[in-house]
């Protein structure tokens, strides 16, 4: 099961956060409101921990991260396999141009397939936005969510076919284009999908 799908940029600013399972905060009977505030700050902490990990990767590293301390603290036990399959234990990431795409998942997901899943997501965005860049994602984060919900529902992957995903998003209404006057110069070229990666053939 996929626990969370995150997108952030090279400075660690979140561009998409989606948590399919809730952040279980310890703290007993704290009042709901404060707990939710805590949730938001824990999410931010998790993002920044992952960002620290991901931004320190030497070139040529694999697309998997060691568990960030926030997750590692509670998942080190190897007592039973049943427990294992529920605990988030895999952090997969991919880096496109200025953006990092992260999936946190349990062991029921195949690590290599997750790498491809991110690729599918980015390709779908590319199709929707035509040569997608970070600015598209910033200004259309609703579309990001819509695209994601065509692929993953409740942490379970429901679709991996590019065309169906794109069709599903388009059925919900037109996808807005990026504002014209916001030049693309800040980002440079698009994310360069496909060309720089030899992974397309794997799933």
């Amino acid at each position, binding site marked *: 099961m996929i626990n969370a799908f995150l997108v952030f940029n090279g400075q660690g600013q979140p561009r998409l956060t989606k948590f399919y399972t809730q952040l279980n905060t310890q703290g007993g009977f704290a009042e709901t409101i404060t707990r939710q505030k805590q949730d938001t700050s824990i999410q931010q902490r998790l993002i920044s921990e992952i960002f620290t990990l991901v931004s*320190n990767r030497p070139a040529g590293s694999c697309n998997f991260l060691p568990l960030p301390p926030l997750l590692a603290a509670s998942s080190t036990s190897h007592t039973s396999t049943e427990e294992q399959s529920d605990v988030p234990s895999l952090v997969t990431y991919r880096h496109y141009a200025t953006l990092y795409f992260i999936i946190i998942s349990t062991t029921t997901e195949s690590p290599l397939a997750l790498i491809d899943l991110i690729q599918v997501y980015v390709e779908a965005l590319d199709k929707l936005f035509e040569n997608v860049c970070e600015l598209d994602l910033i200004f259309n984060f609703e579309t990001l969510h819509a695209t994601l919900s065509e692929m993953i529902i409740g942490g379970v992957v429901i679709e991996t076919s590019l065309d169906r995903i794109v069709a599903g998003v388009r059925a919900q209404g037109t996808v807005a284009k990026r504002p014209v006057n916001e030049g693309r110069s800040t980002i440079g070229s698009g994310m360069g999908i496909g060309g720089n990666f030899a992974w397309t053939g794997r799933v």
Partner: protein
Amino acid sequence: MRRFEKSLYDLIRGLRNHKGNEKEYIQKTLKECRAEVRSQDMDLKATALLKLIYLEMVGHDMSWASFHVLEVMSSPKYHQKRVGYLGAVQSFRHDTEVLMLATNLLKKDLAATSPTVISLPIATLPHVITPSLALSTLADLLPRLNHSHANIRKKTLVTLYRLALVYPEALRAAWPKIKDRLMDPNEDPSVTAAIVNVVCELGSRRPNDFLPLAPRLFELLVDSGNNWMAIKLIKLANLLVQFASLTPLEPRLVRKLLPPLTNIIRTTPAMSLLYECINGIIQGGILDSAEDVAGADEIATLCVNKLRGMIMINGDANLKYVALLAFNKIVLTHPHLVSQQEDVILECIDSSDITIRVQALNLVKGMVSSDNLVPVVSRLMKQLKSSLPSKDRRVPGSSANTPETESDDEAQTAITAPTVRDTQALLLPDDYRIDIIERILYMCSKDNYSSVLDFDWYIDVLTQLVRMAPVPRTFDADTGALLPTRQQVDVAEKVGDELRNVAVKVRAMRATAVRAADLILDQLLSENPVGHSLSSGALKSAIWIIGEYAIQLAMPDDSLNGLLQAIPRIGKAEILAVALHATAKVFSSIAGSELEPWTAERKSRISLLLARILDVLEPLALHPSLEVQERAVEFIELLKLTAEAVSGQPPSTDENHQEPPLLLTQAIPSLFTGWELNSVAVHAQKNVPLPDGLDLDEPIHGNLGRLLSQTDIVTLQSDEADDFEVYYHQRPPPSSLSSSTPAISRLADPEDDTAGSYQQPSEESYLDADILAKRKAERMEKNKDDPFYIPSDNILRTSTPIHNILQNNNGPALDIDSIPVMQLDLDKIGHTVAAPSRPRPQPRQRVVVATDETLEGSDSGTGRQYDSENSSLAKARSKKSKQHSLLQVDSSTIGSFSLEGNASEAFDYERQQREEAEMQQAMKEVERLRLEMQRANERIQMAQGADVQGVVIKKKTKKKATAKKAADGDEAEATKAKPRKKVKKAAPQAVEGGGDDTGGAAASGTPPAKAAPKKKKKKKPAPVEEAEGAV
């Protein structure tokens, strides 16, 4: 549409234009949003919500807006509704209070005609689901499994799965339908794939239910062209086989599965599928259960070789990682298969990628033996050393040492792994360094040090580790924040404990350990500038060793000096207490000699020493820690007495022989000598048998009160057979050495010290220069000066005469460091796979490692000491993991839930509907009552206003508007608080109680009415009449 797009756009652009003072800008925007979200204009509201969602993403809480989220969700316009649902997904938790009010809305949208609208609640439910919500939406979700759009069908079934996680009954209702869908060959392939995904998730929790599906799943595996689904199918098959192997239900399954799996392995171009096949075959125990052994072997070799290939492929780190991941799973069941791959795995320890390193380390941890311990630890030590931050303490000279060895290292590794070079520059995070150190300790101490052949080497490694241990950040005074527990562990303390363990358990190594402890203390003193407190965790054990084995100190005066310097600078009370004791012990060993004549020189020396010690101890008599205070006071008094005795005893002259004061030679040493301290197994205490006739519940004395009152009168009878006294005063001397002559008899101890093998086949480039120098010097020393060296060596290592001869011949001139022995070692590793005949095992250094003391019948056998220390750590961890991990789903209920449960328990669709109907009725009733009250209220107002009839209508409409506003706006916030509380208490009761009790539902008060403000509007005419009728 346009307007809200524009305004989110404005927000983002504003954010980009306010670089530097974003915080201010965000606060301003939040304030605006707060106002906007309360407006009447739905467009404005939705826009504000969208902005809030955006701000939530960057870390600004929006839980306060949950009611407004609900309002936008109920908008009739799709694009607004979508924003509302997005807000719910992002900000609602299962304990969000307004969720209660959303139930009706969700149910209504689930029944919508437009598939895009239906998708919204379906996609949202998994994020907010609670048992009661599951109960009330299940009936609306189930029909969606037959929706004409495949998209809706697959989303629905996933949502049903999430429902089942919190409310297992949902699965009972949904499973037959899901099964039908799976079995239907005409079903849309993407729906089938989604079902497989769900079944795979469920399968990990309850495989038994899915065994009957095996034929269909098998069919899908063979026919489908969808790799993603195939991966899931293999994972599922894996689970089923694992399950089937437990209960011999389906022996045919394995036989059937094997051909297609091997086929996939041989043909598939998709690496992920290949990997999962291999993983599945090995991990699922398919190998074990296959009947023909030859075939199984063939497949095993095929799989392992493929995995090996994955690691070997240059440049693809992902494959390397997953292969290691697979090995980590395989090693649990097939350790021999993995140990054949030792060479490639060891290669990965030096990978530049920490993720890969950690995986490799996990594997290596289980693979070490006496043969490869030294090379493995050497690699790790090199990593640690080379990753030391440059500012870190480096003993001068070591920098000259490092480059040389690095280049050496590179030359050796270049053949097999050309990319390893990066490692040296890599700065490792502290977490990882701690992890490595812990693993080194674990590997070495495993099975009561059975893998350690050379304890000299081990002690040197420990000494080095103390220097390399990261300083725990908890001691950071400036940040009061609590750090995660992993960082709080002072790993230096663990290293110190190891040193202490070795000193206690390995008698022959005690002298070396004491020297190492001495060195650690010196080092800590010299590298921390004066005035700074000493905080290394290793200090405690080092000081303890110095004190306990003071007899073996090479230069006790210097050590005492060091201790006295250290004491004022020790920050932790715990260490200070140990240090006080150690000081006394060292002093006693220096001054307590009985044989040394009591000369004037000795007298003045001891007086000076006493004065110094007293000077250091005296400030501690006022120490805030009671333990420290008590020890300090005790020793101060004792030493003062001693000082008096010393000054009172005239020194012996030629004519007048004087004994040294007894206090010095008898009393103080007797405090510290006696039985030797041995390591005791952790569970030994439990094994102490209960003496016969001991009943702890029995009162000590029948009439205790009287006894106590008598104590004033009765004098203690001394002649009572006092076993206690006898035991303590007349016990036999503990060993041959009586407490009065500790020094001499114990001085003999080091003589049976082994001359350890220094031909250690490793180039200890990871050791600091001074440790290396020390090793070398020791070697020379032993060879040159130790008259017992040759005979004792012969006795100790009769099995390696050639070794001895070589060593003797080369003698002092032998420069071990110049021989690149490491190279040989690598060869050895390289050959282990190719040549099955392993090199002759190294003769184990003949040192006796004491096992933990325990009692007969103890279940914690020998050598458990360190293990148990470890396991207690593991226990602590597992205890921690009992609390849920962040992001973990609690699915504990679904595992125990039975699909084929008895009929009475079965999900009763009709009952559910009946309950629904009752619920509806109850809600109507509530609505009616509410309206009645409203009417009454209006009437009162009307009476107060004393207006003509015509105004009433106007007023009514106004009223409606204000009522709505009240529901929306902040005016209501004060009033909202009250009903909310009521909702919280009453509503679960109403929902869970099935609503069969009208009273219960009525108690829930206004919320149902509030939940659907629109409904209220529409229904208005009818209920009003009804109410009028009632009145």
